[in-house]
C-alpha cells in the first residue's frame, strides 16, 4: 500500500511519498521518511521491501558521493539515474532488489528532471510518475490536471488533490505523506501532510 508519486514543474521537481512503515497487519511507525536526499540537488523517493529500500538507496548515495570526490564535479541527474538502473539490472538475475524508485534532480544546464526506475530496472525519463496502488489514483489525477511549466503553488495543489484521492479511495490508505522538492537552490523537505500524529506516551 506504499504510495510514491512525483512531477516536474517550471523550474523544479517535486516528489511525494507516504510515511508508513508496515509489517503485515502492524504499522511500525507513520513517520518513516522514504525520500532520501541523494546529493545537494537530487532526491530519491523509493518504495518496496524496507530492507532493500534502505540498503540500495544508501549504496547509491555513497557511490554518488564517491564520484564527486574522485572527479571534483557532481553526477548529472541522468547519469545518476542510469547508474542506479545499471546496479538494479546487474543484481536482477542473481539477487534482485525489490525497490521502485522515482529519482528527481535539478541540473544547472538542463533544469529539473524526473526518472521512473522500477524494480526490474526499467528506466524512463518522465514528466510525472507514480508507484504502488496509489498510482491508480495519483496518475489519473495528474493526467487530468498536469500541464508543463506548473508553478510551485499549482504543483503542490495538484499533489494535495492526489493525496485527497488516495485517502478517500484507497482501502488501506496511508495516513501521512512527506513532500520534498528540488530546484536550483537544492533538494529539501517541503512539507508533511499528516492526518495521524504518533500519540504521546502517557506518563505512568
Amino acid at each position: 500500500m506504499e504510495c510514491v508519486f512525483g512531477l516536474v514543474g517550471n523550474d523544479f521537481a517535486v516528489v511525494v511519498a507516504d510515511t508508513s512503515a508496515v509489517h503485515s497487519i502492524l504499522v511500525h511507525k507513520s513517520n518513516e521518511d522514504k525520500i532520501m536526499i541523494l546529493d545537494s540537488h537530487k532526491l530519491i523517493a523509493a518504495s518496496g521491501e524496507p530492507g532493500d529500500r534502505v540498503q540500495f538507496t544508501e549504496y547509491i548515495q555513497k557511490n554518488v558521493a564517491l564520484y564527486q570526490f574522485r572527479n571534483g564535479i557532481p553526477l548529472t541527474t541522468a547519469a545518476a539515474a542510469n547508474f542506479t538502473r545499471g546496479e538494479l539490472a546487474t543484481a536482477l538475475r542473481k539477487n534482485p532488489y525489490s525497490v521502485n524508485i522515482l529519482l528527481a534532480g535539478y541540473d544547472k544546464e538542463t533544469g529539473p528532471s524526473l526518472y521512473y526506475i522500477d524494480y526490474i530496472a526499467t528506466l524512463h525519463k518522465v514528466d510525472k510518475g507514480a508507484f504502488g496502488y496509489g498510482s491508480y489514483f495519483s496518475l489519473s489525477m495528474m493526467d487530468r490536471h498536469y500541464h508543463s511549466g506548473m508553478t510551485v503553488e499549482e504543483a503542490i495543489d495538484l499533489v494535495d488533490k492526489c493525496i485527497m484521492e488516495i485517502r478517500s479511495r484507497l482501502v488501506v490508505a496511508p495516513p501521512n505523506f512527506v513532500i520534498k522538492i528540488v530546484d536550483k537552490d537544492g533538494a529539501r523537505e517541503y512539507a508533511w501532510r499528516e492526518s495521524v500524529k504518533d500519540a504521546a506516551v502517557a506518563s505512568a
Partner: protein
Amino acid sequence: MARYDRAITVFSPDGHLFQVEYALEAVRKGNAAVGVRGTDIVVLGVEKKSAAKLQDSRSVRKIVSLDDHVALACAGLKADARVLINRARIECQSHRLTVEDPVTVEYITRYIAGLQQKYTQSGGVRPFGLSTLIIGFDPYTGVPSLYQTDPSGTFSAWKANATGRNSNSMREFLEKNYKESSGQETVKLAIRALLEVVESGGKNIEVAVMTKEHGLRQLEEAEIDAIVAEIESEKAAAEAAKKPPAPAPKET
C-alpha cells in the same frame, strides 16, 4: 601461472629495510609540503614547481579532499599518491555506509598508514613512495587535527610538520616559530614556513585551509600574493627595528 610471491622488501643484516629507506629518499626529492594546526583551522601548503609553459596548471591539484571534512597533501611519487587517495576516498564512503558515521581523521590516517605498511610486507610489490599530511576536523568534537604518514607505514599527530624537499629546514623554522594560533595567523605561519625553502610568490605555492563550517577551501593566487606581501613587509619592519639607532650628530 607465475605468482609474485617473492618479497622485495627484506631485512638487511643490520636490521634496515632498504626499500623503505629508499622510498623515503624519493619523498625527500618530492615537492615541499607543510601543514599547520590552529585552534579553529588547519592549513596545508604545497610547493608548486614551475609548470611547463604549455601545461594547464589547473589540472595538477596537489591538495585533495578525501571527504567533506578531511583533506590530504603529499610529497613523493604522485602516481602512487593517486592510488592511495583513491583507496582512501572509497574507504571514507564505505565507512559512512557501514556505520552511518563519517570517518575520524585518525581512522583514515590509520587506514592509509596500514595500506602503506602492507606494501612493505607483501610479495612482489614495492612500498609507496610518498609521505602524506592529512588534515581534518573530528565530525563530533569539532577538534582540528594534523597527521603525517610515511612509506614505512608509521603515523602520528602533529601541531605542525613538513615533508618533501628541505623538510628539515621547514621543520626547524616551525619548531622555532610555532605557537597556538587561529585563523589568518595559522595561514601566515604555514606560508612563512614554505617561503623558507620556496621562491616567493602566489604562483609557486598552493595553499588550502580547512575550517569546521566551510570545509576545504583552496586559496586563490591573489589571496596568497596578498599574504606573502604582508609577510614580506612584516619581515622588513622587523629588520628595520633591529638596526642600531643612527649615531648622534658629532658636536662641532
